[in-house]
């Protein structure tokens, strides 16, 4: 298998949650490299820590110990303010429940991350239209999330994730709330983003069919990362 330059480097990461006086270890000594342009699937049973690991990579949560470097930057050393700025540029998020803002149209939802950039209104419009064309929703840009199907909403979410051209895309159960056909469309789209735009994608999933789209599958069990299970890209 070809070894790509790691874009994400995780070294000896530990994470636990506290429930009252009890400390519950969630991730135990995780070490993992994710190559640039890789499509990685993280699998495992509920409570195995896969979403927690994804949150740590995307800087949505803090490690207890260890180091995470993304694009050469040790994100565990950044302050909350620096992390907010870093996320807005480097990470695109795709969630199971789409997480669109219901009072904003598809266009406005996709435009949201661009508000934090110095782009003019016209430039923002160009970027948003391009992102919506990529997900094949240019004709639905004035629709509100409530007027779109689940699959369409997830495509808007993907457009929002890619509109800033981030370093990595993180997806937490992106097909978990979709029917089979819509799920297949979303996976095809993600696959296309990976192959054509060379986006690094890290996806958490329960669904073996979704995981099949990934280049690499890693299994987590009780916070411990198991051996590599690689597969060729289709």
């Amino acid at each position, binding site marked *: 298998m070809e070894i790509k330059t790691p874009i994400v480097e995780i070294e000896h990461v530990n994470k636990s949650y506290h429930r009252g006086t009890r400390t519950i270890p969630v991730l135990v000594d995780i070490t993992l490299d994710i190559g640039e342009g890789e499509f990685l699937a993280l699998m495992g049973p509920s409570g195995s820590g896969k979403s927690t690991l994804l949150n740590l990579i995307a800087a*949505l949560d803090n490690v207890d110990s260890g180091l995470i470097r993304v694009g050469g930057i040790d994100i565990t050393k950044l302050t909350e303010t620096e992390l907010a700025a870093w996320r807005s540029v480097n990470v695109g*998020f795709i969630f199971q429940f789409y997480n669109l803002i219901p*009072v*904003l149209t598809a266009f406005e939802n996709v435009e949201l991350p661009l508000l934090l950039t110095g782009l003019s209104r016209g430039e923002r419009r160009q970027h948003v239209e391009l992102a919506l064309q990529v997900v094949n929703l240019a004709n639905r840009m004035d629709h509100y999330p409530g007027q779109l199907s689940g699959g369409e909403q997830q495509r808007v979410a993907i457009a929002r994730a890619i509109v800033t051209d981030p370093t990595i895309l993180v997806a937490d159960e992106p097909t978990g709330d979709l029917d089979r056909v819509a799920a297949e469309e979303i996976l095809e789209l993600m696959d296309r983003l990976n192959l054509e735009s060379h986006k690094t994608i890290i996806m958490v999933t329960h669904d073996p069919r979704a995981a099949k789209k990934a280049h690499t599958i890693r299994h987590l069990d009780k916070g411990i990362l198991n051996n590599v299970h690689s597969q060729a890209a289709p």
Partner: protein
Amino acid sequence: MYILKLLLRNAFRHKLRTSLTILSITIAILAFGLLRTFISAWYAGAEASSASRLVTRNAISLIFPLPLSYKDKIRQVDGVKQFAWGTWFAGIYIDEKNFFANYAIDAKDYMALYPEFILPPDQKKAFLNDRKGFCAGRKLIERYHWKIGDTVILKGTIYPGNWEFVLRGIYHGRDESTDERLFFFHWDYLNETVKKTSPRRADQVGWYVVEVTDPNRAAEVAQAIDKTFKNSLAETLTETEKSFFLSFISMVGAIIVAIQLVSFVVIIIIIAVAANTMAMTARERIGEYAIFKTLGFRGWRIAGMIIGESLLLTMIGCLFGIALTPPAAKVFGKIVGTYFPTFRVEIETIYMDIGASILVGLCAAIIPTWRAVRIRIADGLRRIG
């Protein structure tokens, strides 16, 4: 623009809840505005008073009279430009519910002291020439539909009997704050009658109004007048017209304090109403705030959204409340108009409405903002789905 659009759409996401909140704020601002107008109305007389006029009354109490003979000594006090006197008559027109202030005055000099009461020259002449004549303010005339030449009978309470007067003049106020509900008649008419019925009460006046040559010397002149009558049978207390009015207001000070307290309680109630709405809103949207944070929005931007929405709701309610206050004050003014020279919404009241609404908007948003800003992204995202 984008943020304003977001605020507006968020604010009206729950139309019924938002409408009820705005309605509550509107009613509260209306109540607050009316209560403040009520308080302003109490002070309207004092605000309209002249800095160059002093009032000399009995030092014991206003209900005790002063001898008419004091006029000669007052005239001699240095700094006195002109003066007149008046007496509270307390007459009733037909029924006690028809209350209005009626005074017996030293007409010629009294009218000269009050240039804010504007009387047409022919009417003034007619009034001064008729000892049984009276003049009254425009609003009082309108209330009872009197016409020049009409005879009006007042039933005396302090001075018993039925007193007959003929309307000779209708004055209107020079300023908006001038009281146009007063009834003036000749003190000479009162005194002549009293001389016949109860001579011991004759040649006495309720107070003297003194105009000073220089308003800056008002305190000095007041002291000089009081010194003149020191150790006499009826010692005097001379004060500025404003202080004189304020001493009246102080008699009902407890009522005014109670009204002020109620007006602030109204504000506290709307803070609670708005805070409840904002707390519900923020709790429902905690997941969305986590999404904003995920996308890189910092805490202050999220705080801006919540505070902005809270201010938007309160300011919409405030605008409706402000718009409704003048018509409500007009209706209210008709009911209580007899007791106040003017009952109008002051610009200061509008400023207080706006200030109170901003305060409500900010206070209501404090706790929801604090919660939303502090929430960890992972915890917030977990609330979705």
